[in-house]
């Protein structure tokens, strides 16, 4: 006998028509396996519908907060380790590049010393020359631009500086978990 249709009706949510209900009852009277299955399903369904909601042990939210804090601490630590790793790799890369670049000069330390000394003296000379040019420009500008404009420019610059410091602190500070 084909029981598929009857099983379909037994385990379905749809409401059966009176005719379908009569056909099903008729079948159940004659078929023991379907009758047992129907009885078992009634018991299972009753159990499922009566089963209570299980609740966690009190203090669940507090435990969640602790987990969140621990997770955020781990995250910050991992970020710091990654940053440190990148910095060390960067330093090694830079030192390696410098070593390759300066390898011929490293063979003779005297030449390297004089070359660096020459470079430093040249830099100092360049900076003092640039300083002289800038001071002459400044002297000329103070004669041209009135005092009010100077105050205005300095005020704007200092406000921009404060704004930059505040936004930098807000962006770099880790978010705190409020208790």
């Amino acid at each position, binding site marked *: 006998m084909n029981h598929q249709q009857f*099983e*379909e009706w037994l*385990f*379905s*949510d749809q409401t059966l028509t009176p005719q379908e209900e009569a056909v099903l009852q008729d079948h159940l009277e004659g078929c023991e396996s379907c009758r*047992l*299955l129907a009885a*078992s*399903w009634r*018991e*299972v*369904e009753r*159990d*499922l*519908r*009566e*089963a*209570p*909601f*299980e*609740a*966690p*042990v009190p203090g*669940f*939210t507090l*435990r*969640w*907060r602790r*987990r*969140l804090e621990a*997770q955020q601490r781990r995250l910050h630590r991992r970020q710091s380790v990654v940053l440190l790793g990148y910095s060390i790799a960067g330093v090694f890369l830079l030192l390696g590049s410098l070593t390759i670049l300066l390898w011929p000069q490293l063979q003779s330390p005297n030449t390297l010393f004089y070359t660096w000394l020459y470079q430093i003296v040249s830099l100092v000379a360049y900076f003092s020359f640039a300083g002289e040019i800038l001071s002459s420009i400044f002297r000329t500008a103070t004669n041209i631009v009135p005092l009010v404009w100077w105050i205005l420019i300095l005020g704007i610059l200092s406000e921009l500086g404060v704004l930059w410091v505040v936004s930098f602190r807000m962006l770099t500070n880790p*978010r705190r*978990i*409020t208790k």
Partner: protein
Amino acid sequence: MQDVESGWLSQAQKGDSQAFAQLVEAYQKPVYNLCYRMLHNAEDAEDAAQETFLRAYRSMNRYDANRSFSTWLLSIAAHYCIDQIRKRRMTIVSIEDLPIPVLPDDAIGPESTVSRSEENRRIKALLEVLDPIDRVAVIMYYWYDFSYKEICQTLSLTQSALKSRLHRARRAMAQEWMERQTQALSPGRRLHESSTV
């Protein structure tokens, strides 16, 4: 209540952990119950429920406010539990590693404790015969009164696939119940079978 909850939701979406903690307080029971019914163990259920809320907190920026928060949250819990069950199946656990059962609440009398634990054992045995996705579908249907549409959304299933899964699950549970009844009614037969082996 809904206004209060939408306030918590919008605050939580801005990263306010205090507002999210209110949501944890409000939804701990449904989330824990789903995890408990899926994993059948208080310790694992606690872990899974905690992890669900952590994942939800991290993904709050992806939460669509037009969708029900409970459906979204239970969907995270369901998928996490499905993964745990699949992982568990791949791991062989020794008897010493099994978690120690949590002692029942003192406020409940010994008789009701026994009947409740018996009921839990029966439900556990019934749900355990099901595939994890079928199990979620049954739990959402019978404990949470979710509509077919909501279960389909949660499990990314079509309505016909869900109907066929529920049909299969109901049949499997009825079959399991029948087998258990048969075994319980014939202890002499089992004794005879074990003595002949």
